[in-house]
């Protein structure tokens, strides 16, 4: 099976959930469609959604919740 990584569009802090008390957007094994929100990046106190750029199933999270990330860094691996 082919895999594809979802990359961080921005440098900042990666969040897997919309707010600290909310459930994560997606978990391992979830199906995603292109355009689905899979996480948030906080950059300079503003929040930006991370969208899946392809259909697939989440194989694994490469970046942890609240992990600092660079632009272009792989966040999530999708099985396609």
């Amino acid at each position, binding site marked *: 099976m082919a895999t594809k990584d979802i990359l961080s569009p921005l*440098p*900042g802090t990666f969040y897997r959930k919309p707010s600290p008390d909310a459930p994560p957007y997606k978990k391992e094994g979830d199906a995603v469609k292109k355009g689905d929100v899979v996480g948030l990046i906080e*950059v*300079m106190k503003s929040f930006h959604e991370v969208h899946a750029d392809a259909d697939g199933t989440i194989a694994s999270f490469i970046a942890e919740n609240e992990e600092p990330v660079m632009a272009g860094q792989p966040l999530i691996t999708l099985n396609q």
Partner: protein
Amino acid sequence: MTRNVKTLFIANRGEIAVRIIRAAKEIGLKTVQAHSLADMESLAVKLADEAVNIGPPAASKSYLNVESVVAAAVASGADAVHPGYGFLAENARFAEAVEAAGLVFVGPTPHQIRMMGDKVSALEAAIAAGVPTAPGSRGRIETPDEAAKVVERTGFPVMIKASAGGGGRGIRVANSRDEFDRLMPQASAEALAAFGDGGLYIEKFVASARHVEVQVLGDGHDVVHFFERECSLQRRRQKVWEEAPAAMLPPDVRARLCQSAVDLAKAVQYRGAGTIEYLYDESSREYYFLEMNTRIQVEHPVTEMITGFDLVREMIRIAMGERLRMRQSDIVMRGHAVECRINAEDPAKGFFPAPGTIDSLSVPGGAGVRFDTILYQGYTVPPFYDSLLGKLIVWDENREAALDRMKRALNELSIGGLKTTKPLHLALAADPDVRAARFDTQFLEAWLEHRATMLENH
């Protein structure tokens, strides 16, 4: 009581950390700079005598972590802690923890932080000191009946504010009774979720308001003021451009406004640097208490420029147990000062954040120009914190000359490698309404709607 302070621990980052280090060094203190893993190369770390790692990049795990900051301060052998602004500066539990560890907190007492941090108890203190407050509930609204009585008295529009909010957060405007009835439950639920306290209060909404604020210093006994600033140019309730003094304020109103700030600070035996914020209604010449900030503020340099005092140095001296070194009659304002916040944001693209590496830097100079910055050539601005790169401050004999000088200084400023808000400030400095000081707190957002294309970085 004089406290023997030799080493100051700076529990903050960015330009205010640099500002504090400079003030501390001038009075012979050793400086220890706290830093996260993302700030190891910061200018503050380079300028301080020592630097201590307090945790990972996320502020919640470093600059906002009370236990790790206090432990690092104690381990460094520091005698005093300066909290700067933001982060833990207005956290009473932090001030208590610093004092409990036997260190001096450079700021007010935990009780003063707590009282002014709760909007309702702050409002009650203002009313007790005779400071004008906007018509409204004068305290927490407990029942819908009570709320209905208040709005019958004030009329519409009204603002619904979260008791635990601040800095513009947790505010809704209702234009009619229907809207009011719909918004009240929402506002309470949101306040509970955001601040852990669903308490609300109500204030009459002033349609065309200007933001003015008075700088005070207290030593726990006496209080003096350093006149006012105007910070009406705001975007998303964040100040963008500040001035001192407030150009439109008649002298008699200024005198009463500044005295009211002293009255409030004296009534609570205020210690340290503080700012009392007001809404000013130009048409009625009335001013209303908004809130008191119990810390040094970002825009303090414009006050320093028109009065000649070093506010950060004075607040450290006060924390060391000294009495105020100036009387009110020693504080005279002269000329006009303007501050532009230079942020790493692209004003042509909705102020999208623009962290990055500084590949070239040219800093303005000359008479009456000051640039308080975190930048040096080769520095990489981290994405984890606010976007403030520096504050360009100018002084001149009068407002018109200050605006011309600001334009000149902005043109000298060149920051290569990332987008900044410099084009916004150049456009504002040339704008006829800004030049005539014709603006209110709603002005900038409306102004920006038509001008994004003018604000490209070149």
